């Protein structure tokens, strides 16, 4: 377990710098809104979802609109329903308590790294959790530094740190490639996601693209059965 934890932690290190830099931007925004460092740390530890926390801080204006904020978080994080579902093979044969304990530290980053490792047959829940602790450490360090001392890097875009996430996720997607049968589902996912981003508000495009692409794959399955 510790060995897997360590491998997972190390595998997520390439992402930690970008996560920290974005954390520092959030820390600055939070301190401008009058959110204390303790409250911000509580958000990091209990919510642990970057884009949702950015939106929460944006909406942070006393008296706090609890219902609106909760709904916004629900919509932004809806993709975690799919992400959680896709982790089923990694959690195969584990106890309910283990699932409850390990699923909290699942972010886009360590999930993606874990799925790529799973594709090579190297993933485990310890690997996933190690990655989660790595991302959480970077996220907490970044936000606390930003809150206390201002942004570590004032303009992450100039260093293409925003593109770091895109580049890593692109690389991880390539390592998930399963051959010709992925062509149609992947093209569909790209088209659905790009169209969804243009036509729908918020983060719905992730769900539309993810589900749309996977549905195309499911349709192919039917065709194969008919042929045989």
């Amino acid at each position: 377990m510790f060995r897997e934890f360590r491998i997972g932690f190390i595998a997520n290190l390439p992402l930690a710098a970008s996560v920290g830099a974005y954390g520092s931007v959030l820390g600055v925004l939070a301190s401008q809104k009058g959110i204390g460092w303790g409250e911000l740390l509580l958000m990091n530890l209990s919510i642990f979802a970057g884009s949702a926390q950015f939106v929460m801080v944006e909406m942070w204006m006393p008296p706090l609109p609890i219902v609106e904020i909760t709904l916004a978080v629900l919509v932004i994080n809806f993709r975690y329903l799919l992400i959680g579902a896709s982790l089923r093979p990694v959690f195969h044969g584990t106890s309910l308590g283990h699932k409850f304990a390990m699923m909290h530290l699942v972010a886009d980053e360590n999930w993606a790294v874990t799925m790529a490792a799973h594709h090579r047959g190297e993933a485990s829940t310890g690997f996933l959790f190690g990655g989660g602790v790595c991302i959480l450490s970077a996220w907490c360090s970044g936000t606390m530094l930003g809150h206390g001392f201002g942004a570590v890097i004032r303009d992450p875009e100039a260093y293409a740190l925003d593109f770091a996430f895109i580049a890593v996720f692109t690389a991880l997607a390539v390592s998930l490639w399963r051959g010709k049968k992925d062509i149609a589902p992947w093209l569909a996912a790209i088209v659905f996601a790009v169209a969804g981003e243009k036509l729908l508000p918020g983060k719905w495009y992730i769900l539309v693209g993810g589900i749309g692409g996977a549905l195309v794959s499911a349709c192919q399955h039917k065709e194969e059965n008919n042929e045989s």
Partner: protein
Amino acid sequence: MNPDFNMTVFLTIAMAAMVTYGLRVGGLLLAERLPSSGRFRTFMDALPGTILLSLVAPGIVSAGTWGCAAALCTALCTYLTRNVFLSMVVGMGVVAVQRNL
């Protein structure tokens, strides 16, 4: 700071945390109750790849020609070297050079 305000802060964070954790655990537990064979299995197996692409595709498109070029370099690098970190550096490098030109 009156205590009411702090209570509201705590409640707001707690609600957001419960919703997020509920989605994470709910997805996993839901998947276990659904069939693990046939067409649904095919759907689930395709999901990691299609979610990842959906996360990045709009960002690549909105980054324009250079964004697409950087993503292609990243993809090619991964395909050839299987090194995710190197591929990330290549993609970021292309974008950083273009932005600072």
